[in-house]
């Protein structure tokens, strides 16, 4: 009988730096636990695209990110018991998997008198002094933390995060009014923190952190630019590992030095035309959140079909740096933060306008990536438990085909929930997709598209 090869769960990663990146997730967790021991404040935060986190750090608050920790739990396949706890408490199993993982964990923490249960993945998260929610991208981002009230009994702050359509973006004055709104909201957040922690925000300290953050993100952006090279010097498996450093720790000098090493390693590959995978035959994009529990899938695709996943996950990428013109005359770090985060969400407005489509987030970026990174196809990954990263996948698929004759393959799954990822089906679909990519390459050639 033919022996079935066991499918790989974790990804091998092609960059040395990517193999070392796990350190940063552990560092964040350890820092918060040390802070609690030393009586310093700790907060759990949603990803807020750098808006409120540097302010918290400047106030001496150690930050930890349940989204990051939950991805870790998924990758180590330790989320299941937490998911069950949250369902037992009445949370629907259709809610965000990350949310259910931490709601279940928070219940355990409460049941254990807020002593971290010894079996907690990565050493666990300590009880926070407050929770920092955010209005960007998804309703879970604020509802989840509010729902945590039943276990944590600590205040929640909700950072506003405007998302406007491309038509509205171009209305005269709209951008500046929106930035002003963000700045006013950040001031209100500072007042909340000062009141809660009974100390003043040191603006110089914040300015310093903002500059570090800008620099780290600049390096991360430069890495993104390098990835346009053929063959691809860095694939999605690498990116999902290294991104922790810029996404969660952009204001940390150690993370910045690490990202510089990522840059150097990728640059070396580009200069020497070294591909991340041998025999790159197909260049694919991936949208949006990956199946953390089965990243080995991407290595197998490389091995079997020569597929390099060359770019991915708009959500996780830094925008280009603010232009000198945009920064001109602005010294207030709150305004710089507001402008940068707003820029992340609206940078692709010109692309949306060019094609007369919405939204700017999650959709327009792919119309840009597909050209810039010479994508032969897109793998769309609709998630059972993350609608925000799923709502627009079919829309992206339609637009890539309509505008660029680039096909997509849709493989359903989840960030956390193993039950819905049908690996066999995923492999079969990918096998069949190869021909589709070949066929559309020809069509693009005939249509005069240059990849």
């Amino acid at each position, binding site marked *: 009988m033919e022996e079935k090869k066991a499918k790989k769960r974790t990804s091998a990663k092609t960059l040395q730096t990517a193999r070392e990146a796990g350190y940063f997730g552990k560092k964040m967790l350890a820092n918060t636990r040390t802070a609690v021991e030393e009586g310093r404040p700790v907060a759990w935060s949603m990803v807020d695209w750098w808006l409120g986190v540097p302010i918290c750090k400047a106030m001496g608050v150690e930050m930890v990110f349940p989204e990051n920790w939950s991805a870790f739990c998924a990758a180590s396949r330790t989320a299941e018991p937490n998911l069950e706890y949250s369902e037992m408490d009445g949370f629907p199993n*259709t809610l965000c998997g990350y949310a259910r993982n931490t709601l279940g964990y928070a219940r355990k923490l409460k049941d254990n008198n807020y002593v971290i249960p010894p079996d907690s993945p990565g050493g666990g998260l300590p009880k926070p002094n407050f929770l920092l929610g955010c209005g960007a991208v998804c309703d879970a981002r*604020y*509802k989840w933390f509010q729902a945590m009230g039943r276990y944590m009994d600590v*205040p929640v702050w909700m950072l506003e995060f405007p998302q*406007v359509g491309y038509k509205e973006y171009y209305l005269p004055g709209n951008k500046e009014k929106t930035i002003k709104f963000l700045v*006013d909201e950040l001031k209100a957040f500072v007042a909340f923190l000062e009141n809660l922690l009974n100390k003043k925000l040191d603006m110089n300290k914040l300015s310093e952190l903002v500059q570090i953050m800008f620099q780290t993100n600049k390096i991360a952006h430069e890495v993104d630019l390098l990835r346009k090279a053929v063959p691809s010097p860095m694939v999605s498996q690498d990116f999902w590992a290294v991104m922790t450093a810029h996404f969660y720790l952009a204001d940390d000098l150690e993370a910045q030095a690490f990202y510089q090493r990522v840059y150097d390693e990728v640059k070396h590959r580009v200069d020497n035309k070294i591909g991340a995978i041998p025999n790159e035959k197909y260049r694919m994009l991936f949208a949006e959140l990956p199946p953390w529990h089965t990243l080995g899938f991407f290595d197998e695709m490389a091995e079997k079909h020569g597929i390099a996943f060359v770019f991915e996950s708009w959500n996780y990428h830094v925008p280009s740096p603010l232009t000198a013109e945009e920064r001109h005359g602005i010294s207030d770090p709150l305004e710089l933060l507001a402008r940068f985060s707003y820029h992340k969400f609206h940078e692709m407005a010109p692309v949306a306008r060019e094609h*007369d489509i*919405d*939204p700017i987030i999650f959709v327009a970026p792919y119309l840009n990536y597909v050209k810039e990174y010479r994508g032969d196809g897109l793998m769309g990954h609709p*998630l059972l438990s993350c609608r925000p990263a799923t709502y627009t996948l079919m829309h992206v698929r339609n637009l890539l085909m309509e505008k660029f004759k680039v096909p997509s393959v849709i493989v359903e799954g989840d960030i956390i929930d193993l039950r819905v990822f049908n690996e066999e089906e995923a492999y079969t679909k990918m096998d069949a997709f190869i021909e589709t990519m070949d066929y559309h390459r020809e069509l693009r050639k005939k249509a005069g598209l240059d990849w």
Partner: protein
Amino acid sequence: MSEKKGLARAAEIYAKSEQYARELKNQGKKIAGYYCCYVPLEMLAAVDYVPVRILGDMNENITSADTYLPTVMCFFYRSCLDLAMKGKYDYLDAFFGAHSCDGAERVSYVWRSYLKYACNFNIDIPHTVHPPAIEYFKNQLEAMKETIEEKTGQKISDERLAAAITLYNKQRGLVRELYALRKADPPPISGTEVLQVLVAIMYMPPEEGNALLAEILEEVKNRPVTAQKKPRLLITGCLIDNISFTKLIEDSGFNVVMDDTAIGSRSFGHDVAVTGDPLGSLAERYLDKIVCPRTFRETGKNRAEDLENRFGYLRKFVEDWKADGVYLNIIRNCDPHGYEIPELKYYFEEMVNVPVLAIEQDYSTASLEPLRTRFQAFAENIE
């Protein structure tokens, strides 16, 4: 359409809403479709658009939407887009989307990427009621106003806006009067009839809607009450736009006496203050006064305060309408309401002492029947 009056007319418009809207269009009216209860209708009425609430259809299989939207999302908005892609909203002259929740926001963007209108605007609704958020929302309304003015060539003067505010305040007041009648036991109007009335007026020019409401109030006040005394139910959560559902609930042993949904009291609960700053008043009313879990309310110092801030208004509904039970309606995959389930249950069952039934349903009449036994069991428990 026929010349029926009062509740009979409301029932007819409810049943044939699309035909009714097309007739308006044939009479030369301009029709503006809008999402949810956060779009200020006053702005649309001020340029003589007939605002038409975009709704789904629980009777229709979703097929066309599969090309544009994933299956893992709110079936209400999937259904809305499905109908639009099948041409059932092709009579719209203008389109107003809103970021009331992620689902609404993304679907409105997908919608307007494929279906183009001379006039369209997407309102970004902040998630808090902080003073800067209300100011931002007001700026959005200003931008919406300018867009409408530019596209229609009509000026929305303060006077026109004030007149529209008065008209809609009248409508909201009439609906509240109707709701007040439901405080009687048994109520003189059923939840099913109320739903027909509300959907009907969401399709009618406001003056006509107001005239119909006045007729209905007279009718309801003067007709003999035939309903039996039964456990009194408050419905909260995701909207219900199909009477098959309210009928099923009422046939299972309840009188539906009050609701807190986007087609019900959330749309009609509060007036717009008449001030010298109509846009400011609109911003205040639509963002702050409408209470929906899509808007974050400050948690306060602890959980007890948080619960009161979030659900205190519902307790008042329960007290004023003497509800014996609360039904929390969740359309599957709805995040804003889904996260509320455990705390809302806790609040009512442990703090107010009123039982709660929470059901996740699929927004399809085909899947309603199995719910009947759950409502029956809930009613029996209360009796």
